[in-house]
């Protein structure tokens, strides 16, 4: 009884508040409109297109006109002959990338932070950024050249007594090659944000640490890392939201049928299927499935982060 009254009071309170706020901040609300419209038109509007995942979409009949297909595209995907394999591969490649590639730029940023010479810092930064700005197709060409028999990596292996075989023809080596090239490509670019975060750490903290007798190592552990942690956590959460989006461009540029076993991921599988079938609805269904999993992971990561160190996106 009481709670009902309370609720009503709250509601009228809210109504009053809104009305007051409206009359006071009319102009501000008006200024918000374009941004709101942007989100509605360009972000939420297209979401309705996802409905083709439940239809047999054909461009001639349009989104509304195409006949309904129910969950048949999802069923096709889950019951596909290779579903388990591509799903496992996707998760494994993502997890390995997260495990090895995610910490790499943090380490690089910490190392660069310790370098005194400005010129050397600049040099290292430019060199490590470089691969990020090279077109992906060129990057993959370089990777292939390096890993083919007679390529630079194979020459080193052979000189150490190993066998000179093409790495990208052996399923065991695909993931290491992929992750290593990922690190090479992104380490410099992704370190920028950490370097920026490092520069915002109060120098007085270092001073205080030094007075307390902390060496460089101790300073890094007790001042630098804690200062960097919020940035790391945010980056981590954002990363979780993309866990299943293994870039298919890079995969299809690197893989071949002899390493499907470890290299074929959801997106490359859909690409092959889409290329043959022009099956927009199927692709949309897989995309939707990916998004749902990613959203779940994002929420989970955010929750964990909030529990562990009160740091979260929302």
């Amino acid at each position, binding site marked *: 009884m009481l709670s009902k009254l309370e609720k009503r009071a709250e509601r009228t309170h809210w109504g009053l508040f809104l009305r007051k706020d409206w009359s006071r901040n009319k102009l501000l609300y008006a200024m918000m409109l374009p941004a709101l419209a942007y989100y509605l038109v360009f972000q939420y509007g297209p979401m309705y297109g996802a409905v083709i995942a439940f239809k047999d979409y054909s461009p001639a009949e349009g989104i509304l006109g195409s006949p309904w297909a129910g969950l048949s595209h999802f069923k096709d995907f889950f019951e596909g002959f290779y579903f388990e394999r591509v799903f496992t591969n996707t998760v494994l490649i993502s997890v390995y990338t997260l495990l090895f590639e995610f910490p790499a730029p943090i380490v690089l940023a910490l190392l660069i932070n310790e370098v005194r010479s400005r010129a050397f810092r600049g040099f290292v930064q430019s060199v490590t950024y470089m691969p990020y700005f090279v077109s992906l197709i060129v990057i993959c060409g370089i990777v292939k050249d390096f890993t*083919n028999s007679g390529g630079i990596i194979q020459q080193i292996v052979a000189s150490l007594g190993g066998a000179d075989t*093409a790495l990208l*023809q052996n399923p065991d080596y695909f993931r290491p090659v992929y992750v290593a090239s990922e690190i090479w490509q992104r380490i410099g670019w992704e370190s920028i944000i950490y370097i920026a975060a490092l520069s915002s750490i109060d120098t007085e903290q270092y001073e205080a640490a030094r007075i307390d007798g902390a060496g460089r190592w101790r300073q890094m552990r007790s001042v630098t890392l804690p200062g960097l942690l919020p940035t790391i956590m945010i980056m981590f959460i954002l990363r979780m939201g993309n866990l299943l989006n293994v870039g298919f461009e890079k995969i299809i540029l690197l893989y071949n049928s002899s390493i499907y076993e470890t290299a074929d991921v959801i997106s490359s599988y859909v690409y092959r299927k889409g290329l043959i079938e022009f099956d927009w609805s199927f692709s949309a269904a897989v995309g939707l499935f990916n998004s749902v999993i990613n959203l779940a992971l994002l929420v989970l990561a955010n929750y964990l982060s909030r529990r562990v160190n009160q740091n979260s996106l929302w």
Partner: protein
Amino acid sequence: MQASTRKASSAILLSLMLTSTALTACSSSNNETGSPSPSASPSSSASAPASESASPSDSPNAGGSVYPIKTDVMLTRWLDSGAFSQQLAVTPKLEDFPFNKELEARTGIKVKYELPAVNQAKEQLNIMFASGEYTDIIEWNFVTGYPGGPEKAMQDGNILKLNDLIDKYAPNLKAYLAKHPEVDKQIKTDSGAYYGFPFIRGDDYLMTYGGPIIRKDWLDDLGLEVPTTMDEWYTMLKAFKEKKGATAPLTFISTPRLFDDLQQGLFYGAFGIKRDFYMDDGKVKFGPAEPGFKDFLTTMRKWYAEGLIDKDIATVDGKIRDANMTSGKSGATYALAGGGIGKWLTAMKDVDPKYDLVGAPYPVLNEGEVPKFGQKDFAAPQGGNFAISPKSKNPELAVQLLDYGYSEEGSFFFNFGKEGEAHTLVNGYPTYTDPVKENLPLNLGLYTRATGGPFVQDKRYYEQFAALPQQQEAVKTWGQTDVDKHQLPPISPTAEESTEFAKIMNEVNTLVDETTIKIILGTDSMDAYDKFLTKLESLNIDRAIEIYQAALDRYNAR
């Protein structure tokens, strides 16, 4: 003011249409009663076609439409500019190509070309269909590039059924089709509908342009004959490896599909199969499901283990193959007469004067057998790929424009361009002029449309395009196969069938490619083959064969 001009011009057009209809009626009846000579294609048999300067009315086929047609209408034409990227870099607008200017002068029809952004043709085609803003003429392969094929494209209202229009306004094409029923079959649907004008290869000689290629100078050094059987190939590759120091004696392209270069049946054919579907006595078969596939795998596995096949065989692309063939790393491959023999001989002319290549026959298992498969294109390789939109206000004019290329004069013009500019007649033989020859691939695109247009391609174009004696010889060697008996014609499953078919084949192709390469590389043992057969069965390959069989039967009944 504007309205009255429009009225006037439409009146002219109407009268024009009437005359052309009347004329068409005469000429088509002429053609039907004319002595049919199915074996002789007009382009190749024509002894010195009516010289360029001959007025159109002298030309026997021009009866349908009197060119140039008097009209103010501007037609729009959409095409994927990919084929012209080289020319567009020199002359940025298709309207300004000398060939297109002359075509406009000859037909009297002005054309505005619309080009999609490079590599986005398919997306932009979809946008055109979705937006409803069609060009009059749409150039696209509707057989392979439209889900459900041309029949579906007509159903969807994206292209026009042309039967009546061709009857009335395209006497030249009609005459050609009457003489060449095999082309006729290739460009209509199972229900007998015409959906577009074809690019026609006017001679068997023009349909074969790729095959196995071997280092001739190595063969001579080693005292070996050009190999014809698998055993002789083995001996040769072994010799290349041991005596010539080739680290990858046999190389071929594996992108975008695994063993892409062997799709036409090289090596597979020796064991009576192909990587894909083919037919024996009218029965559709799928190569990897046949026993010959196991023998193929066994042989290739042995070759690979002995280092006769490129170690990187799963990742070889065109660039790597070029490098292998010109650096002494490899001595045998599959390639085209132009992009292989021509390219490498030219590149090596100054580097190594001894360097020589020869086109080898497709190898067979036992001496004296005729190769079962080989590269051979269809007479109408893209079906009817010049389609007309249902929204076009002047479909009859578009038909008349497209029909020009099948008249004797028009076809000659497409092949050899304008006399004096692109070619001169030497003893009645249309010879490309020296400025054009300076860069044939570029200039043929600017001054002629000797390949890929709506016309009948002439043998004499290819004789000059692939002019090296090695190329000429190779094309002859490659042509000697039984491929006509075993290659599937361009059949088209129905829309529902093709969805089902694609679903099966997507999984099957992954399975076949993976099994093939893993067994050959030695990653899997030969035992994997038995497991492969069981899996293939469970993926319902029989249904896919059934679908193709039904489509083939319908095709034969066309």
